[in-house]
């Protein structure tokens, strides 16, 4: 009886160790999520002028890529893994570029997926 109890205790400790080891392994190996941020923007009618938006957003150190769609009135950007850009900073960047931001939202899909969804060119 005593032996069975000890065996069960040992098995429990081993399982617990294996669980934490597995969790720690995933935590190290799994990449921190990169953010994809979408902004609905008013006044976005001219490709010539949308340059300014792209330039502003690419100036953020966290930015990895930017997509602008005049048709969807959408500006989207991706950030480096584990980083994000504050809504207020994004709003200020768009305002400083001369445009009005309607909404800012974050998406789980990659920027390439966003680009495909809206039919934007790379």
């Amino acid at each position: 009886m005593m032996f069975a109890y000890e065996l069960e205790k040992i098995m429990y400790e081993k399982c617990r160790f294996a669980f934490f080891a597995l969790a720690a392994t995933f935590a190290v190996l799994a990449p921190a999520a990169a953010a994809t941020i979408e902004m609905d923007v008013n006044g976005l009618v001219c490709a010539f002028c949308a340059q300014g938006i792209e330039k502003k957003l690419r100036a953020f150190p966290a930015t990895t890529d930017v997509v602008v769609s005049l048709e969807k009135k959408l500006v989207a950007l991706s950030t480096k893994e584990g980083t994000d850009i504050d809504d207020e900073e994004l709003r200020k960047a768009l305002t400083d570029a001369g445009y009005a931001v309607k909404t800012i939202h974050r998406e789980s899909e990659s920027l390439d997926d966003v680009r495909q969804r809206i039919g934007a060119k790379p």
Partner: protein
Amino acid sequence: MLKQPAGVLAGVLLAFAQGGEAKPIAFANGTTVMAEYGAGTMEETQAFYAPYYWLSLGGGWLRTESDIDGRTREIRYLRANYLVQRWNLDDAQANVFAWGGLGSASSNAFRGNLLDRNVGLQVDYETRRIYAALMSDLHESSAYSQRIDTLQLGFAPYPHDYKDLATWFVLQARSYTGGLYRGVEWAALVRLFKGGAWVEAGVTAQGKPQLMMMFNF
């Protein structure tokens, strides 16, 4: 300094449908260089840097040649362009720009150089398919006063997107004061732009060429 939308005024601007030129301020921290050949009556080059989306600073060179008596003027100027108001609408943008500056003018009609004073105004309205703008540019000195008013109405055969080639067909009416030209000079233009490059070419009703190139970077 945030410019707020106002649909009613934008509608009025569209109703006026009075045309102009490229915007004198492209975007914040951007540089714009432009050269225009206006059917032999005017030629102009400009270079501006915009520290903000509502202000650009720079200079230009303007040469006019009277279609009436052959008098020429050359004006070299420094100018500030200011975005007075912008309306960012759902599917359109409208702007009012104003500018002012000082320069030096020479001519075959007077000796030496005179101080040139320059003021101007541009009102424009734009969707992805329609463009309308009016520009008025006044130069004055103790020896002359000349104003160039330009109206442009543009139509895009297809809605372009960012990084696409944009194509516009533009009808232009231009009038000159100060003995430069009698009547209204009409021109039909094709405008193409992609990335930071803009090329516009056409011909006036008198068969003279009209060209413009602009680069933003």
